[in-house]
Structure formats: C-alpha cells, structure tokens
C-alpha cells in the first residue's frame, strides 16, 4: 500500500497537497499541464523532499531514503537508457548496479528481454533500436529491478498511438498482473479510460484521492469537467 500522508510539496510559489492511499494496480495520473503531476511522482521517487507530511510504503516512512534505496523504480519521458551500454547491460542495471553480471544474472536478463519481445537483441546499443523497442528495453529493466512501485512519467509520450497502446498492454501484462503498484502520468484521458483501474486527478494544487476509473468518468467532478472541457 502506497500512502501519501498529509503530504505537502512546494516548488517556489507552487504548492501541491495529497492525502490518500493507493492499492496495487494501474493508476493513471491526469490533469492540466503545470498542475503538478510530475511533482507528485518526483516526491514519491525521492527527487523532491516534502515540505511537510510523508510518503509511506506498507507503513514504512520513506522520508530521507535516496531514490535508489526506495521500493520505487521510474521511467522518464526520455533518456531511459544509457546510449553507451548494450540493451542487455541497460536491462542488467536493474539487477546489479555495478554491472558485474554473473551467468545467472545474464540468464535472467535474457528471460526479461524475451518477455518484452526483445529476444536476441541484447547485444545491440539503444541507438540501433526503434523508439518502441527502446521503451521495451526500459520496461525489461523495470521488470528486473523488481520494485513494488513503478512510476511512468509520460514514458511513452513520444510513441505513436498504436505503439503506445502496445506498451500499455505490456505494462498491464508484466507489471500490473504481477501485483505491482503502477502510477502512470498521461496527457491522454483515453489512455486512462482504456487501461487504468484508478485515476488520480491533479489540479488546483491538489492530487485528489484515487477513484475508480469507470465511476469517475461516469459522473465527472467539476474539476474533471473543467480539465476535459465537457
């Protein structure tokens, strides 16, 4: 269970508050740009210290824990792979940050690459892959990192609609089905409606509590109406 306990985040004059808990599954984070979606994810990942309140995982206070020591892994809009490392090495970083991979590690990397549909491409460098394949390689690393919370900060925004749908399916089948808590920032409410179990609306300085996707879109709140323009 991921909890934002009376959390207040501050960046200059901007303030964002959140006070809720989230169960495993796929949660979409939507809202107007500049509303604080990325700020929320930054705080959960440990890039931004809360002004007050805290983030908890299963009751454990994460305050002060470095990003690499949290039960959290994250994909960004770009630069999710190191261009000078091979795909297998990039994925392997999820297992062993020192990159000293044993035979057993290499086997697990191969299995992960197979699961994301990149079997046999482990020796390539990222620039020899298409955009979709690069996203898959990053997902392989997330899979291997084996952290219970996965944050996707518009990770697939650069992909076309068809590829993005494929990636979301993959997220669904390898991460959500395995019981992980996935938070996904998206600009497209349709993405949220199609795949998300819950939706967090971030607007007006609040990250509103997660709501069931179906219920939320069936009876939109005034904030959501304003964001959707309906």
């Amino acid at each position, binding site marked *: 269970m991921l909890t934002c306990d009376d959390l207040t985040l501050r960046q200059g004059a901007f303030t964002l508050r959140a006070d809720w808990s989230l169960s495993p599954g796929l949660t979409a984070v939507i809202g107007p740009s500049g509303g604080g979606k990325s700020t929320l994810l*930054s705080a959960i*990942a*440990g*890039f*931004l*210290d809360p002004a007050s309140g805290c983030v908890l995982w299963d009751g454990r206070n994460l305050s002060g824990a*470095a*990003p*690499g*020591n949290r039960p*959290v*892994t*994250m994909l*960004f809009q770009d*630069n*999710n792979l*190191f*261009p*000078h*490392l091979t795909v297998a090495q990039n994925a392997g*970083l*999820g297992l062993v*940050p*020192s*990159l000293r991979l044993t035979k057993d590690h290499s086997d697990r990397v191969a299995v992960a690459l197979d699961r994301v549909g990149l079997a046999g491409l482990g020796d390539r*460098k990222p*620039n020899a892959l298409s955009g979709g394949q690069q996203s898959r390689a990053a997902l392989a690393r997330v899979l291997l*990192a084996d952290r219970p919370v996965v944050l996707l900060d518009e990770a697939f925004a650069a992909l076309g609609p068809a590829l993005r749908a494929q990636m979301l399916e993959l997220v669904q089948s390898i991460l959500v089905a395995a019981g992980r808590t996935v938070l996904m920032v998206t600009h497209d409410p349709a993405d949220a409606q199609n795949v998300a179990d819950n939706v967090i609306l971030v607007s007006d300085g609040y990250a509103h509590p997660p709501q069931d996707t179906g219920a939320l879109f069936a009876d939109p709140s005034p904030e959501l109406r304003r964001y959707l323009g309906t």
Partner: protein
Amino acid sequence: MAQRAVAIKAAGPAWVAAALVLALTVGPLVAVAFRAQVGSGLAAGDWAAIRFTIWQAVVSALASVALAIPVARALARRRFRGRAALVMLLGAPFLLPVIVAVLGLLAVFGRGGILNAMLGTIGIDPISIYGAAGVILAHVFFNLPLAVRLILQGWLDIPAERFRLAAQLNAPVWRVLEWPMLVRVLPGTLLVIFLICLTSFAVALTLGGGPRATTVELAIYQAIRFDFDLGRAALLAASQFVLCAVAAVVAWRITPVDGLGGGLDRVVARWDQSPLDWLWLGAVTLFLVTPLAMIVLRGVPGFLDMPASVWTAAGRSIAVAVGSTVISVSLALTVALRGGAIAQVIGVTPLASSALVMGTGLFIIVYPVVSPTVVALPVTMVVNAMLALPFALRVLIPAVQDVRQNYARLAATLNLTGWRGLRIVMLPRLRRPLGFAAGLSAALSMGDLGVIALFATDAQETLPLAMYRLMGAYRMETAASAALLLVALSLLAFWICDKGGRVDADL
C-alpha cells in the same frame, strides 16, 4: 530539486585539485610579490615594455577583427567546395606551435622570403619583419582565424527567417541584422585576442626584441636569462599579472565559446552577395596556407638528416606533453565534476597568470633549493598543464552539466552513485569531451615555447626550444625540418586523443 537528485558528485577530490591549482598559480605569484623590488620601481625600459605590450595587443586585436569581419561574412553567405576544409583550417592555428608559424612567416615575409624575392624583381627595397610589424603580423596570423570563427558563429546565430524577412522587405541587412550582431559579438572577440596577445612570449622572442619591440614577457625572460636580476624580473612579473588579471576577468565574463568547428558548417541563405567575398576568402586562404606550405617545402628535404639532438628533444617534448595532458585533464575532470564556484575560479586563475609569470615565481622558489635546469622538464610539464586547464574546463564543464541534466535522475533511481556512477555513467558519457580536452592539452604542451626557455639549457631542450636555437644559429633548413616534425607531433597528439574519444562513443 533535492540535493541527492544530483548524483555522481565528489566534493573531496575537487577541493584537493582546486588547492593544487591555486598553489601552482597563486604560489608563484606570492613568491613574485615577495621578491619584487618595489622600492627601485620600474626602469624607463620596463615602462616602454609595458606600453609596447598594451599597444601591440590593441593593434593586433583591432587588425585581426577588422580583417575577420569580411572573411566571416563571406563564409556565412557562400557555399562552395572546400568550405568545410577552410573552416577546419581556421581551427588549425590553435594547435599550431607558435614557433612553427613564425618560421613559416619568415619564409614568406622574411629577408630571404618569397615576398622580398618578388619585390626584388620589380626593384623595391626588401622589407623587414623584425620588430613591431613582425610581432603584429604573427599575432594577426594566429588570431585572424580565431576572430573569423567567433564572428562566423555570430552570423550563424542569426535566425534564417530574419534574413528572409529582410529580403522580402528590401531592408538593409547590414543595418538591421549584421551590425547589431557585430555590436554584440565584437567586444568579446576583441578582448579575447587582446588577452592572448598580452601574454605573447614566443612571437616577441623570435620577431621582437630591442627597445621598441619588447613585451613584458620578453623583458622578464631577459631579466632572468641575461641579467639574472630576479628582483626586476619579479617586479615585471607582478606588472604583467595585474595587466592579465584585469583583462582575464573581463574576458571570462563576456567571451563567446569557440567549439572548434562544431556547427559552423551551416550556410545562411542570402540574397545580397558580393563578388568581393571570393577575394577575401582567397586572400585569407593564401595568408594561412603559404607559410605552412613553405615549412613543408623547406623541411622535407633535410628531414632525415636532422641531428640526433633534435630527435632527442622531440622525445622530451612527447614526454612533457603526455605528463602535462594527464595532469591537466585529471584536474579539469575533478573540478568539472564538482562544478559551481570553484570550477569558475579554477577556470580563470591560470588565464590571469601567464607562462612567464608562473615561471618566474617557480624559478624564485626552486632557485635557492636546486638548480633550475634540473627541474626544467617537470616545471614545464606542470606550467603547461595549468595553462591548458582553462581550455579543458571550458570543454568539460558544460559536458558534465549535460550528462547530469540527462541522466542524473535515471542514475539515482538505479543506485548508480559515487564511483559506480562515475564508472558506468559519467566517464563513458564524457569520452568525447575528455578526448577533445586531452587533445588540446597535448597539442598546446607539445608546441609550447615559454617557461622551458626560462629554465632549460641544451641538456633539457624540448623540440620548440631546439627549433628556436637552430633559428638563432641561422640553420633555417634544419629548423624547417624540426618545425615539420613539431607540427606533425602536435597534430598527431591532438588526433590520437580526439579520435580515442570518438571511437565507439555512441552519442
């Protein structure tokens, strides 16, 4: 953003590096300050040297920039075969050892040069390039290309849409676009060239001299080598430091960055071209290429007959270059990784302290302990490393910032911090700028004729010093062969390092 988001940051080593750099740059200054005989004051000849130093730097800067403007404009608006080669040629003087260029200029403009030979056939008296005219000619040779590159960058920074708009409105491009750009770019360009000429030693040593063409750097050298008057040398060094410090601090703030050819391959589409462009491009190419061609022409025949001492000197130069490259790049990397204010201070300090100023200070420090000739090579290595440091830092600081910007968060989520982050993320991402910085340091050190002249006797002479002595003995053919070897070594050193950073770099 929380502090720990900026992963891969080592503070300790950076402070050690900074302390080392300050000790090596400020330490000699302290020695100079203690030794300077303020009571006796500067003699009339010393004031003349200070006046000449400033005057020639002003004239050199103005001449370089005035000639560079039409050349840069021609390059900005003309597309032709060999344009890329010409832009590359404009980058070459930075890597070209000063003494080699001087020898080349002598072969063209000197007493027995091709210009006087041509003048002789039409009955005109030979001209002499020794003295102020020669010093300025050599400075223009070195700085005209730099000025062209900096000004060309200014032209290319004007958005293409503005030229289209001006063409459509039939507006005077010069007044609405080019003049405002030049007003922005020229002060920095003038200042950086002024600063370079202010610390000119090798040019003044070879082409200047005498009461009317002695720079402060040369006067320091003469005070130590000929008069062994350390007090006066120290006083001169202190004056030189004040001159440079003022210019350096101003220059560091307003100087444009020269990426040595990066991005200068674009041509602005223009609707106002003048045939004079070709004249300017032809003239500048001839001016740059002829002296170098003369070195090759005169150097090749005797290349294999050079005395063994020249080859030994080349070996010393290589050793000095390798050592100084290792020192300057590792210091620069350590400081660049830390970033912030220390990086800025370390980047500007050596600029304010010239080779001869540092040399004088170190001479004063070591002289009571050990014979200066014994430490000639290590001192040269260290001083060259310090002088290359600002250039290495200018390459590395933005590169480090780029890596942080793009990969610090990813590295943090993957626990790639400390040494692990350095090994897996930072160093591989920095390969190209590291190679480039190493190449610059190596080439600069290889061709340096500065502090070595102060310390060395025949027994420790490096290749540039050996060349200078050959020229002094009027063995011009052998000097040309040595020049050929020197320029080959400098370019090779740059090429090896730069290539090493590019191979398989995956950017």
